[in-house]
């Protein structure tokens, strides 16, 4: 099976390892023969994407931002602020 270079690179990045490191070379050898691992990695990627997508739907509310700046009134940091 032809190795998917991008996939190998992504897995190594996930692992925080260099592409030429020993663990990545082992992964490359394994992936040459394992479709299941490709599916597994794809599911992990989708899991992360779904959580990132969900986070993007939640914005910092304007009211919270305004309160923050009021709280951080830089001339007086301790008054009017009770987190």
């Amino acid at each position, binding site marked *: 099976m032809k190795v998917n270079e991008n996939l190998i690179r992504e897995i190594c990045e996930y692992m*925080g390892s260099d592409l030429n490191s020993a663990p990545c070379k082992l992964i490359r050898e394994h992936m040459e023969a*394992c479709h299941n691992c490709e*599916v*597994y990695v794809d*599911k*992990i990627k*989708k899991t992360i994407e779904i959580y*990132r997508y969900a986070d993007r739907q939640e914005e910092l509310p304007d009211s919270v931002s305004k309160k923050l700046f009021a*709280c951080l009134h830089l001339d007086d940091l301790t008054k009017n602020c009770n987190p």
Partner: protein
Amino acid sequence: MENNPSEELLVARAKEGDHAALSQLVVNYSSRIYHLGLRLSGSRQDAEDILQETFLIMVKKIGQFQGKSSFYTWLYRIAVNVGLHKLKSKPRKYDHISIDDPDFERISSEAASEWPKFDYDVVNDRRFRQKLDRLIEKLPEKYRTVFILRDLHELSTEDTSRILQITPSNAKIRLMRARNFLKEHLENMIKAEVST
């Protein structure tokens, strides 16, 4: 995430008490810290408290920031400490659950079944998002924090391990377990969602 020269100037000015520079740093990071607090605590009120407390500490202590780490690493460390401290003062929402390593033997031996086609619009549904929230809240803090920093805030392994004061290897192991736990449960959620 990388420190850029303009941020270094901003931090230098903020250290001298420049109000505009301090405000700009708050603008630059408030959304990220709010999201961090939200994912750590699972509560909007707690996220707001974490946000305020983090920036109060930032403003008070920025004069002590020596630039040994990047500014955002320093700020994230404050926020994580504030968040974890807050969590300790609250009763646990969920019982302890065990988190296992992925069973690679099973993965490689069973027939691979891909996820059903998934429409991201489902995530816009509040009910589904609440399920996602509950799922990540079930993760013990030590795994959840790594997942949040590495995968949701896209920090490097090195920065994550500095912020949490753990080794890079430990950060990688925790991340692998967190991802596997979420994947396993999310897979069931998605199958249930698609079949309804």
